[in-house]
């Protein structure tokens, strides 16, 4: 039997069911893995070493049966601090539970620890955390991506069984790609944002990061669904996402976008080669032209910063948190730029204009989805960047996330699955699989088929 922390969520649940393993053994291996690796990789900001006690209380609760889940530290979790990786919330103890973690618990899951992120989720590297960077477990000279870098790294390092992250413009898919794991960004409105430190209210999407597509589906089942506490949450029940696994792809039409962008020829060449497998599975694969993603950078930059300036106004250092001088440089920049784009004389020039260009992207996707069932592109222009890459780069994240920003601001669901592994560096490339709003079924179908018909997922064949 391999170390139990290396098991997938599905396998863990099966073995617990069969009583082939105990929660004691599982927690021993997971905690050991965390303790050995966390000092170097800084994936976790806080760990619950007594989680086994809670796990045993949950042992009979389906479907998660007490399994340890890592949660990004921008979710309110009673009993843990919630820092959003910012000095403003250092030592902040939430007095209420986020819907996501409440549902995780109701499904039998146990929060083993809170993971590191770029402060306030403002970033795509986890290098701009106020509590030190997280390193990429595949190659610690490199970054794990962000902002859910701690969660993605914890999965990649087998320092958890599965994890929860959140995405506003790439923050689930990009770190999943950089860490060589699976990230599933649900449709905006599929998972409640109640109790998540608000960033861009019109695009924030909590979601799972896991070892396999199936693991992500199991986790998404636990957290998705209507919530009257979040006015932007879909009042319709979510489907059982696991039913979309193991599907026949015959007749599905795949459109490949961003295939001719500069400075990513190798990334795209590798992707096109891997997409051949879909043809063998009965789908068609065609190159397609989408609206220039560079405009999505502008849309995201303005919309996100405007909404951030409003959302972060609540941190007054009086009712909770430290005063506003403790914001890091990036947070200050974003709040101020957002304020500027909403201020008198500038709001139509910037904010309204950005919202209009968002409409153009929505129209562009509508046009593409008339022709194709799903769209695929690389998640990132290249591999995970080296440590120090973000220094002095005030637009680092936005430029890195260019390929995923458009689908995020339009609320589309998307998944990142590994499609290439470089043996020299041990780093991965991930593909972004996008579908229309509320069509996670298509995303899962395609992502699952790719994972099961190729060798890029390290856990795919694990015992």
């Amino acid at each position: 039997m391999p170390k139990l922390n290396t098991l997938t969520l599905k396998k863990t649940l099966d073995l617990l069911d069969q009583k082939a393993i105990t929660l004691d053994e599982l927690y021993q291996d997971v905690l050991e893995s965390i303790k050995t690796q966390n000092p170097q990789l800084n994936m976790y900001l806080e760990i619950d070493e007594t989680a086994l006690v809670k796990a045993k209380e949950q042992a009979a609760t389906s479907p998660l049966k007490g399994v340890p889940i890592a949660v990004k530290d921008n979710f309110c979790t009673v009993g843990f601090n919630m820092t959003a990786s910012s000095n403003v919330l250092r030592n902040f103890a939430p007095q209420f539970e986020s819907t996501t973690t409440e549902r995780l618990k109701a499904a039998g899951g146990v929060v083993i620890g809170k993971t590191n992120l770029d402060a306030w989720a403002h970033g795509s590297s986890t290098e701009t955390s106020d509590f030190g960077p997280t390193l990429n477990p595949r190659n610690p000279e490199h970054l794990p991506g962000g902002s859910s870098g701690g969660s993605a790294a914890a999965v990649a390092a087998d320092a958890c069984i599965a994890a929860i992250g959140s995405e506003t413009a790439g923050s689930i898919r990009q770190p999943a790609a950089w860490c060589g794991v699976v990230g599933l960004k649900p449709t905006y409105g599929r998972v409640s944002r109640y109790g998540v430190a608000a960033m861009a209210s019109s695009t924030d999407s909590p979601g799972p990061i896991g070892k396999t597509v199936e693991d992500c589906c199991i986790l998404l089942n636990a957290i998705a669904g209507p919530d009257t506490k979040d006015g932007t949450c879909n009042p319709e029940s979510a489907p059982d996402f696991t039913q979309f696994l193991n599907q026949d792809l015959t007749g599905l039409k795949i459109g490949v976008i961003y295939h001719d962008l500069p400075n990513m020829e190798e990334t795209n060449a590798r992707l096109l080669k891997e997409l051949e497998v879909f043809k063998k599975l009965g789908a068609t694969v065609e190159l397609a032209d989408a609206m220039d993603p560079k405009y999505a950078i502008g849309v995201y930059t303005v919309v996100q910063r405007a909404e951030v300036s409003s959302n972060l106004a609540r941190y007054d250092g009086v009712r909770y948190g430290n005063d506003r001088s403790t914001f890091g440089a990036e947070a200050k920049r974003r709040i101020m730029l957002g304020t500027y784009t909403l201020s008198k004389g500038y709001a139509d020039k910037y904010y309204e204009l950005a919202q209009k260009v968002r409409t153009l992207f929505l129209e562009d996707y509508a046009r593409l989805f008339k022709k194709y069932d799903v769209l695929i592109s690389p998640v990132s222009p290249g591999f995970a960047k080296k440590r120090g890459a973000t220094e002095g780069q005030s637009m680092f994240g936005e430029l890195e996330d260019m390929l995923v920003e458009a689908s995020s601001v339009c609320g589309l669901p998307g998944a990142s699955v590994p499609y290439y592994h470089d043996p020299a560096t041990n780093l991965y490339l991930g593909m972004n699989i996008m579908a229309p709003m509320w069509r996670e079924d298509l995303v899962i179908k395609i992502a699952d088929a790719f994972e099961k018909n190729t060798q890029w997922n390290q856990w795919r064949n694990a015992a």
Partner: protein
Amino acid sequence: MAKTTVTPAQVQHIGRLATIPLRETELQNFSHAFEETLVVVDELREPDVSHVEPTSQVTGFTNVWREDIAKPDQTFSQAAALKNAAKSHAGYFMVPGVLTAKDT
């Protein structure tokens, strides 16, 4: 297209609007960072938006209501509300002074 400038004086003004305390040394840095960011943002002027309306919400949901009743599970006790306060006194949050002696 001319590059948009943001002067240190403008940065100071924005800092006041956003209630972000700023040191003199930060004004120049932020001025430069904003100008860099606005180069990217100014590209939004290129596409033709004459035929579209702004989209602020992609779900299309409107008028999402709830019952106008107090919910115990979404209500703090006074103790919980004060738990993370920097300073409190007799069950109140203490706020930085606004009125000073000479204003009276």
